[in-house]
């Protein structure tokens, strides 16, 4: 019994994954601040961030453009991975996620609606209103998915239902954008494709609070999540109030997905690909490890994808979903194939 003190885990592997993700995050951050149409030296950037002094144009670029954008990619990317993990847990399905289930599109529709109405009547949209609208949209889309899930017990049908909901919401959003006032369209259009650009510090403050608070909360739920992963009946026999816990999962995953969509628009595949990659790296599905690692991993993944989106065809900028799909979709396909093989 004393052979290995902690047989329940492989601490060295876990440590390596976290150190690797942390290092990747730091390197990518430096790299991202340092790249763009205007070249700024590392020394200047360090000074600007630490002291806020330097060439005024450079300070503006670093502090008002690049830094908030990086924070958006890291925090919102982490949020997406987190939300995806929660939905996979809830549905017991590895390919559930805010994008494929239509939750992001539901949020998108409600945010677009709110923006158009608000700009017409009060010509002002607060971050808080955006989050609220996105949350409401996410919950309504989730409601439809749950109705579909109740009627059809097949997991694949659930995803089809999600994709249909997603198409309907997108169609209505496009319709609204077509008939919106010209001045709004520019903003709405790029946002509705998904993008981290144009993030303001005011936004950062709001989503940082929402996302980080949600992350802490989800992390504290590691224990019941691990019970729930075994299946509802077993979770209940371990003492989890399953009904209450399910509601909590729905609310949290919708809040996070809504918040991300409110600020960055719908972003595909992060929610599915990142938790899966993390589980492969860690070789475990234990929530207490997967939750923080997915959060970090989502940040790294989105930061990397945003970097590609920004620089690959500069000065033309790709939408973030184009890049996340390019890297995320093959992961999902690979996962489906390997799972199918494992079953045979």
């Amino acid at each position, binding site marked *: *019994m004393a052979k290995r003190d902690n*047989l329940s885990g492989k601490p060295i592997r876990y440590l390596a994954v976290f150190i690797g993700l942390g290092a990747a995050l730091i390197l990518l951050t430096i790299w991202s601040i340092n790249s763009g149409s205007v070249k700024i030296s590392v020394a200047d950037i360090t000074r600007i961030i630490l002291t806020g002094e330097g060439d005024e144009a450079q300070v503006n670029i670093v502090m008002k453009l690049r830094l908030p954008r990086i924070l958006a990619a890291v925090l919102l990317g982490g949020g997406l991975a987190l939300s995806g993990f929660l939905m996979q847990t809830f549905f017991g399905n*590895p390919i559930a996620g805010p994008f494929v289930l239509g939750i992001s599109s539901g949020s998108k529709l409600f945010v677009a609606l709110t923006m158009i109405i608000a700009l017409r009547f009060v010509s002002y949209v607060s971050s808080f209103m955006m989050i609220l609208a996105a949350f409401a949209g996410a919950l309504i889309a989730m409601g439809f998915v749950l109705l579909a899930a109740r009627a059809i017990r097949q997991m694949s049908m659930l995803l089809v239902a999600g994709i249909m909901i997603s198409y309907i919401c997108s169609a209505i959003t496009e319709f609204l954008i077509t008939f919106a006032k010209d001045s709004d369209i520019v903003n709405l259009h790029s946002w509705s494709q998904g993008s981290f650009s144009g993030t303001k510090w005011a936004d950062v403050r709001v989503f940082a609070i929402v996302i980080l608070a949600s992350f802490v909360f989800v992390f*504290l739920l590691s*224990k019941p999540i691990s019970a729930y992963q075994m299946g509802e009946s*077993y979770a209940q026999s*371990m003492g989890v109030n399953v009904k209450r816990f399910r509601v909590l999962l729905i609310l949290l995953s919708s809040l996070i997905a809504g918040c991300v969509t409110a600020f960055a628009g719908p972003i595909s595949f992060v929610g599915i690909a990142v938790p899966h990659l993390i589980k492969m790296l860690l070789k475990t*599905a234990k929530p*207490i490890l997967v939750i923080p690692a997915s959060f970090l991993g989502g940040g790294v993944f989105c930061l990397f994808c945003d970097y590609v989106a920004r620089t690959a065809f500069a000065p033309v900028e790709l939408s973030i979903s184009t890049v996340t799909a390019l890297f995320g979709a093959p992961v999902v396909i690979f996962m489906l194939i390997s799972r199918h093989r494992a079953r045979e």
Partner: protein
Amino acid sequence: MNEYYFRTEDLAVGYNGQTLIHDIAISIKAGEILTLIGPNGSGKSTILKSITKHLSTIRGDSFIADASVSAMSYKELSRKLAVVLTERIRGELLTCYDVVATGRYPYTSTLGLLSKEDREKVYRAMERVHARELAEKDFAAISDGQRQRILLARAICQEPEIIVLDEPTSFLDIRHKLELLSILRSMAKEKGITVIMSLHEIDLAQKISDKILCVRGETIEHFGTPDEIFCEEIINGLYGIENGSYNITFGSVELPRPKGTPKTFVISGCGSGIDVFRRLQKEDIPFYAGILYENDVDYQVARHLASEVFAEEPFAPISDAVYEKALAAMKQCENVILAKVPIREQNRRIKDLIDTARSIGLLKEGGDTELLSGV
């Protein structure tokens, strides 16, 4: 304090407000094993799920040591009651150790980290079910027998006072069935853990249980000790056995007896006839058997397979009445099969029967007659 550790009162169970079974009254003492038997779809699982609170009851309640289960929080219940369900464990990338360790859940802190003591309990539970060597194995890749043992270890390490198991022996081969049930038996007797389970193998149910609950139809057909429950009428009635029969003494099942007018008569004794009876049954040839004593093993099988058995009370000399009946029946037959039969003072009239058969040319002489020579 009630003398019964676990009981149900006026319990009615079902789905979506529809009552399936009502008036379920169970009462068992601590350390007893209660087994639910009954045909498929009779509601055994429904009752078990209602007891474990996985299903809300329609009416009534269960009590563990006089504490109402419905009033208990899930957390409280999880420290008293553990389950082994038919439902598959859904988790991914789990080792067997991980699965067993989930049994410690009700006792760990907010983040669910295991203490040294918890880990030792996990290993002890695995040793208890002889599965210590499976600790590092992938839970998805082990055999059905191993999986059931791991699930039992998981339940054990939850340190419950009562374990509920839904068909724990399904899919197991006979060795693993016996192993699993003997673990349950010793847990019940040594640690005083109360066991409630459903079984398909009624022969095993008879041997392991202290109490039996027969589930069929809208109410409970019978509840009692195995001695009370295991009689042919109750078991054949419970399962609606028409094609075949259940032998209480042997705890075994027999296929239905061949139909038609018998043209064959089997003379046997002390177990020599069983093979002959079974062969005739397989060939679908109806037959008479006799003359057998009622305490002969041949009699137990012949009773289920022969069209008619000519039997005498144990240890008595064969009476005229029985002899005449057997003789008359034999004379209607076209052949007589003689299996090894020891002939002594009390049953010497069997020799008369054999002699008659030989004299009228019915006897197949292939049978073993050396034993007869001494008479």
